[in-house]
């Protein structure tokens, strides 16, 4: 298994713009690069070897992401092989600042730090910002949402329901 002990990404610069065109099928505004699921992409003897890591074990998007990567690389003239790796485990820290902004613009509140996340999900603390009006007067509706990575919230001011991307560390 490649890079067993490091959290570093190894992405060939040439491949970057190609991989950035591939988006998360569940969150189309978010590139898989901003999501941090691509851990390495290198060219060996003209063939691209890509390693991706799942956000959650059961994430059904991983198969689609694998296929989309192969297609994007094929369109750019590369044959490729995509492997799923589990270590090191994905964390929400790998979502880039641009990714966080894309989430917020799309209506999904970006993950808080671990302690704050716990306060919100366990103790009902009202600090998650509504993605519609910005109010922090928001209420946890459910710890689980439309996908494994999200929780459901509702804004008590503008009444808008929205998703919150749970902190995973």
């Amino acid at each position: 298994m490649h890079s067993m002990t490091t959290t570093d990404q190894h992405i060939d610069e040439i491949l970057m713009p190609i991989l950035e065109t591939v988006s998360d099928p569940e969150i189309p505004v978010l590139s898989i690069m901003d999501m941090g699921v691509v851990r390495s992409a290198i060219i060996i003897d003209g063939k691209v070897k890509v390693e991706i890591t799942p956000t959650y074990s059961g994430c059904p998007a991983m198969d689609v992401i694998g296929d989309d990567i192969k297609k994007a690389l094929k369109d750019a003239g590369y044959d490729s092989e995509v492997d799923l790796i589990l270590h090191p485990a994905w964390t929400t820290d790998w979502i880039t600042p641009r990714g966080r902004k894309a989430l917020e613009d799309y209506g999904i509140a970006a993950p808080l730090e671990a302690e704050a996340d716990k306060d919100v999900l366990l103790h009902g603390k009202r600090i998650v910002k509504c993605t519609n009006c910005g109010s922090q007067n928001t209420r946890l509706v459910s710890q689980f949402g439309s996908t494994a990575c999200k929780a459901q919230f509702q804004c008590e001011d503008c009444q808008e329901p929205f998703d919150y991307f749970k902190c995973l560390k």
Partner: protein
Amino acid sequence: MKNENLYNYILGIADNSLILGQRLGELTGHGPSLETDIACTNISLDLFGQVRSYFQYAGKIAGDGRSEDDIAMLRKERDYKNVLLVEQPNTNFAYTIGRQFLFDAYHLAFLKELQKSPDLTLSAIANKCVKEVSYHERFSSDWVRRLGDGTEESREKMQEAINDLWMYTDELFHQTDADKEVVEQGIGVDVTRLKDTYYNYVGEVLEEATLVVPESKYFHKGGKNGIHTEHLGYILAELQYMQRAYPNMEW
């Protein structure tokens, strides 16, 4: 098979998640509320994802071309090694939550130990799963408190569920012969050492939930050695139907 003990050990871990995942999946569209429905099926999805990682690894160890699907779908009832707790029916929401909490508290403690395994695939899977299962345990323990410390009716139902499911908890800390071998090799987790911490923690949550820790000292066992309650046959009938009716079918 060269590494049969490790193969069986992995199946023992994975079958718990597989059968519990299937049970929770039954709630798709049938949960007591939209939010709890989604929560239970999300947990189910996490468990199935974890099962895939374990079975892929088990398939590699078997080395005879068996795929993750073959291992999941084509074994007979006696070859499933899950504990009896996870095959117990959903009955009502208190049972679903009680079963989940009694399993999650164990599962989380187990995975924290498995993270330290020198087997790099198992520790990688555990590293991944432990984050997800932390959420499961938060959800289930939170609901135990809510229902226990809720209305008179919810408290009564939660207590009844805990009383009925309690007799399946001791088996979590049993070891099969294969388990013992793998523990001796330093790869597996010695579950007997998790028992005291488990019962202390579960006791604390039940107390917070104003529930009584059952006093019964009679415990069922057998699942880990393939001797199951009648429920498993029905679960497998549904789980395996497509592969049995249309062998080798794919999506």
